[in-house]
C-alpha cells in the first residue's frame, strides 16, 4: 500500500535549503533499526552522505500512511517505496541540472550536487529544488539502479539513534510539556469485574491530586507530580470495591482452554491425495504454546493535549493513522481534529499497550480541560492488560511410506492474532470497553492467508509430502485478550512441524538433517539447513551427559527470509541452551549488522519464550504480573550465537525480524529430546517442566 496510497514525490522526499534531504516514512522505529536502514537506502539513491539525510518523525499530519510497522515488511515494502521515491527525486534533479548546466547527463558528486560530465560546472540539489515538480507521481517501477551503484546498501552503517538512548532523553516517556499532569489508571482486577464503589474523596484528598476520573469502570488519577499520581492510584486501589466471581477459577490450562473453546474453520490447505489418513497413520502428536506477554522493558506511555477542540497525542504506536481514526471515533471528534505523533518507546514486538495508553491519555486530557496529560502504565498492567500472544494447540499426524512422508495432517487451534486498532468496525482500545457508555470492540477477526494469516501463519510446511492437509480452527473467544505478537502463529506452528519432523526421523532411524533435505526441494531452504548443520557439526558434538543437539528450520510466512537454527542444550540439574548456530538467507542485505542484530535478538527472545515464559491466569485474570512471576532470559543464560548469512546480492531483500523464532524453539525442543531421550511437546520447556517429565517417566 505504500506507494500506491502515497504516490506524490513530496510525500516521501524534500530537499532542504541547506542541501540536506528530509525523508518521510510511515514506518516507525521499534528498536529494530528500521530508521537507519531507510536512511541508508535514501542516501544511496540520492547519492548523499548519510549525515545529509534526515528522517522525519512519523506523524499523521506529515507522513505517508503506510499502515502498521509490522510483519517484517518494512524493508520489503517501506524500503522499496523510499528507494523508488529517492531514485525518482534524483532523476528529476538530474533533468533539472541538465537544463541548468546546459549539458546532457550530469553526474551526482556524492555531496549533494550535480556536475557536468567534465566536472567543470556544478549545481547543488538545493539550487535545483525549485525546478523539480515535487507533486509528480513516483513511478512504481522496479529498482532503477544497479547494485554496484549503491555505496551504503550492504554495509554495517551504525544505528543513527543509539547514542540518544545512552545519553539522556530518547523516548515518549521523556516528553514533558508545560503544565503537564501525570496520570495513572486503575484497571479492574479482572476482565469482567464491575466497579461497585470507590471513595473518590479519599483519593482526591491526596497531596497534589488534581482530579479523580471515574467513567464506568475506567478509573484514573491526575496529579501535579508523578509520585503523587502513584500514591493516589495506590490509594484508589484500596478505596475501590469490585465485583468478584462466585467461584474462584482454578489456574488456567492452555490445552483445556483451547480444546473447550468453540472454533470455526478459518483456513484450510490441501495438496495431494485424500484427507482421510486416519486409518493409515504412522505417528501423531500434539504440541502447545502458552499465552505470552510482550513484556516490553518500558511500560506503555503516552502524552496527549487538547487545544481548542483539537487533540494531539504522542505515542509509541505501531500504526499512527489507524490509531488516529480510532481516537476520533472513541472521542467523537472529526478525523481532522486529531493528530497522532510517533515518538519511540521501549522495544515493541507487536500489538502491545501503546495504543491503549494513547486513548487513556486522550480521555484524560479531555477530562482535565485540555491540560497536557502523561499516562504511564505500571509493570503489572503492562503484563496483565497488554494484549497477549495467543496460546495454541497444534495436532499433527503423518504416515510414512518407503522412507518418506506420504501424508501429513496438521490441525491448529488458536485465538486471534489480529485485534489491532483499525481492524474491523469497532474500537479496539482497552479503555473503550470500560467506559460507562462503552464502545464495542470489533468482532473477533483473523487476517486472511493473503495478508499473512494469523494462527495459520507457517501452518503449511514448506516440505514436499505425498499429501498435506492443514486446518486452522480459529477460536474467537478465549479468556485472555490476544493480538499480534512477533511471528503470530508461526512460532507454535514451526515448533510443532519441526518437532514432528524429528519424531518421524527418529521413528524411521534417519538423521534429522538428511530427513529434512529428503523432503525439501527449495534450494535456498536446503542451503540454510545444510550450512547451519555443517557449522554445528564442525564445532564438535556436545560433550557430557545430558547434552543434545537439535535443528529447526522455516521460511518465515513461506515467502520471507529463510532461517535454520541448531541449538546445543544441557539438561542436567539445570536446563541451559549452550550454543546456537544459525544460517539465514534474506536476499540482498541492506545493513548486515542490523540483520545480525535482528536475528540474534530473535534467537535470544525465542530462547526466553521457549524455556521460561508463560502467562499464568485464572479465568480471565492474568496472575503473572511482575518479573518474578513472569521471568525472562537473563544475561547469564544467554548462549554463544554463531551466525552465517548466505549472500544473495542479486535477489530482493526479505524481511528478517521474525525469521528466527520458530526455528529456535524447534531446535531447542529437538536438542532437549536428544539430551533426555524423550519428547517435550508443551512450551515452555523449562527446567521445572523437564524435571517433572523425567520424574513422570521414571518407573514407579
Amino acid at each position: 500500500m505504500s506507494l500506491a496510497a502515497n504516490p506524490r514525490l513530496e510525500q516521501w522526499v524534500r530537499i532542504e535549503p541547506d542541501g540536506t534531504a528530509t525523508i518521510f516514512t510511515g514506518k516507525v522505529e521499534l528498536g529494530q533499526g528500521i530508521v537507519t536502514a531507510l536512511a541508508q537506502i535514501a542516501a544511496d539513491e540520492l547519492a548523499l552522505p548519510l549525515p545529509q539525510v534526515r528522517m522525519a518523525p512519523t506523524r499523521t499530519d506529515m507522513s505517508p500512511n503506510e499502515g502498521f510497522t509490522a510483519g517484517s515488511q518494512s524493508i520489503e515494502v517501506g524500503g522499496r517505496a523510499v528507494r523508488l521515491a529517492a531514485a525518482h527525486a534524483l532523476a528529476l534533479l538530474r533533468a533539472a541540472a541538465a537544463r541548468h548546466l546546459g549539458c546532457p547527463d550530469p553526474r551526482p558528486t556524492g555531496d549533494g550536487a550535480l556536475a557536468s560530465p567534465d566536472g567543470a560546472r556544478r549545481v547543488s540539489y538545493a539550487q535545483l529544488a525549485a525546478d523539480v515538480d515535487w507533486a509528480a507521481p513516483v513511478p512504481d517501477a522496479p529498482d532503477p539502479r544497479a547494485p554496484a551503484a549503491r555505496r551504503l546498501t550492504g554495509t554495517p552503517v551504525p544505528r543513527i539513534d543509539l547514542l540518544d538512548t545512552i545519553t539522556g532523553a530518547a523516548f515518549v516517556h521523556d516528553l514533558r510539556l508545560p503544565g503537564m499532569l501525570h496520570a495513572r489508571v486503575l484497571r479492574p482486577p479482572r476482565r469482567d469485574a464491575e466497579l461497585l464503589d470507590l471513595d473518590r474523596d479519599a483519593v482526591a484528598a491526596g497531596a497534589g491530586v488534581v482530579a479523580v476520573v471515574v467513567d464506568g469502570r475506567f478509573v484514573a488519577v491526575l496529579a501535579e507530580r508523578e509520585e503523587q499520581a502513584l500514591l493516589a492510584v495506590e490509594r484508589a486501589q484500596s478505596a475501590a470495591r469490585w465485583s468478584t466471581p462466585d467461584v474462584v477459577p482454578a489456574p488456567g490450562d492452555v490445552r483445556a482452554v483451547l480444546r473447550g473453546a468453540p472454533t470455526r474453520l478459518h483456513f484450510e490447505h490441501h495438496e495431494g491425495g485424500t484427507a482421510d489418513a486416519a486409518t493409515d497413520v504412522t505417528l501423531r502428536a500434539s504440541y502447545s504454546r502458552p499465552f505470552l506477554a510482550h513484556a516490553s522493558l518500558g511500560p506503555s506511555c503516552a502524552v496527549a493535549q487538547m487545544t481548542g477542540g483539537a487533540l494531539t497525542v504522542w505515542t509509541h504506536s505501531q500504526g499512527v493513522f489507524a490509531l488516529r481514526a480510532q481516537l476520533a471515533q472513541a472521542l467523537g471528534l472529526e478525523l481532522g481534529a486529531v493528530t497522532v505523533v510517533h515518538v519511540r518507546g521501549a522495544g515493541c514486538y507487536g500489538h502491545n499497550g501503546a495504543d491503549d495508553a494513547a486513548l487513556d491519555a486522550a480521555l484524560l486530557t479531555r477530562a482535565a480541560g485540555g491540560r497536557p496529560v502523561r499516562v504511564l502504565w505500571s509493570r503489572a498492567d503492562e503484563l496483565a492488560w497488554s494484549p497477549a500472544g495467543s496460546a495454541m494447540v497444534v495436532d499433527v499426524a503423518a504416515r510414512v511410506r518407503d522412507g518418506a512422508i506420504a501424508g501429513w495432517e496438521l490441525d491448529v487451534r488458536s485465538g486471534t492474532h489480529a485485534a489491532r486498532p483499525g481492524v474491523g468496525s469497532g474500537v479496539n482500545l482497552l479503555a473503550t470497553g470500560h467506559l460507562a457508555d462503552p464502545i464495542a470492540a470489533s468482532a473477533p477477526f483473523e487476517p486472511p492467508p493473503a495478508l499473512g494469516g494469523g494462527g495459520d501463519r507457517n501452518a503449511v510446511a514448506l516440505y514436499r509430502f505425498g499429501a498435506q492437509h492443514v486446518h486452522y480452527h480459529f477460536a474467537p473467544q478465549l479468556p485472555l485478550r490476544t493480538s499480534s505478537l512477533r511471528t503470530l502463529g508461526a512460532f507454535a506452528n514451526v515448533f510443532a512441524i519441526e518437532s514432528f519432523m524429528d519424531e518421524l526421523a527418529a521413528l524411521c532411524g534417519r538423521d534429522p538433517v538428511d530427513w529434512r533435505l529428503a523432503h525439501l526441494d527449495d534450494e535456498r531452504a536446503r542451503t540454510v539447513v545444510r550450512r547451519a548443520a555443517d557449522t554445528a557439526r564442525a564445532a564438535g558434538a556436545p560433550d557430557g551427559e545430558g547434552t543434545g543437539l537439535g535443528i529447526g528450520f522455516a521460511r518465515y510466512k513461506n515467502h520471507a527470509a529463510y532461517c535454520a537454527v541448531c541449538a546445543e542444550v544441557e539438561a542436567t540439574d539445570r536446563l541451559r541452551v549452550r550454543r546456537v548456530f544459525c544460517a539465514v538467507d534474506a536476499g540482498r542485505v541492506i545493513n548486515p549488522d542490523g540483520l545480525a542484530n535482528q536475528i540474534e535478538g530473535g534467537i535470544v527472545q525465542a530462547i526466553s519464550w521457549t524455556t521460561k515464559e508463560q502467562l499464568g491466569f485464572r479465568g480471565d485474570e492474568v496472575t503473572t504480573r511482575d518479573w518474578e512471576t513472569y521471568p525472562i532470559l537473563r544475561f547469564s543464560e544467554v548462549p554463544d550465537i554463531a551466525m552465517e548469512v548466505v549472500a544473495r546480492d542479486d535477489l530482493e531483500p526479505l524481511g528478517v525480524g521474525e525469521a528466527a523464532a520458530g526455528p529456535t524453539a524447534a531446535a531447542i525442543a529437538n536438542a532437549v529430546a536428544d539430551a533426555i531421550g524423550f519428547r517435550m511437546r508443551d512450551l515452555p520447556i523449562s527446567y521445572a517442566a523437564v524435571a517433572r517429565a523425567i520424574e513422570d517417566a521414571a518407573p514407579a
Partner: protein
Amino acid sequence: VIALRVNGNDVEVGADPDTPLLYVLRNDLGLMGTRFGCGQGLCGACTVLVDGRPRQSCDTPTWMVAGTEVRTVESLAGDQGRPHPVQQAFLDEQAGQCGYCLSGIVMRTVALLEQSPAAGRDEVLEALDGHLCRCGAHPRIVRAVQRALAERAT
C-alpha cells in the same frame, strides 16, 4: 527541601523526601536518561551510581541519598559531548536495539570499570544479571562491557 549532590552539582529539590530518587532525577532535575521499568527494583533500567555503587533509583527514597554523590548517564560525556569510553564501547559494538535498558547497564558498567577493572566474563555476567533486556541484545551488550574493560586495561 532535600539537598543533593547529583553529577557534581549541589542541588535542592522540593519533593517529599520519601519520593523515589528516579522521579526527582527525571522530573525535578530533568535528567531523563534514567528510566522507569518496573518500580520494584527487578529490571535495572533505573540504575544510577550512589557513591560509586550501582543502585536502583525506582525504589530508593530520595532522603536516603542526601549527603551522597549521585551519578547518572548525563554525567558521562566528556569535552564537547564526546562519549565516555563506556558509551563509546556500546556504540562500537552497536550494543542495543530499542535502547531502553541501556542507560542502566551503562552505569553498571561504569561501576564495574571503576571497582573491578580486571573483571572476567563471569564477573561481567554476574554484574549484568540484575538487568533485563527484552530485545535480545545481550550478546552485543556483553561484548561492549568486555570491550570497555579491555580498553581501560590498555
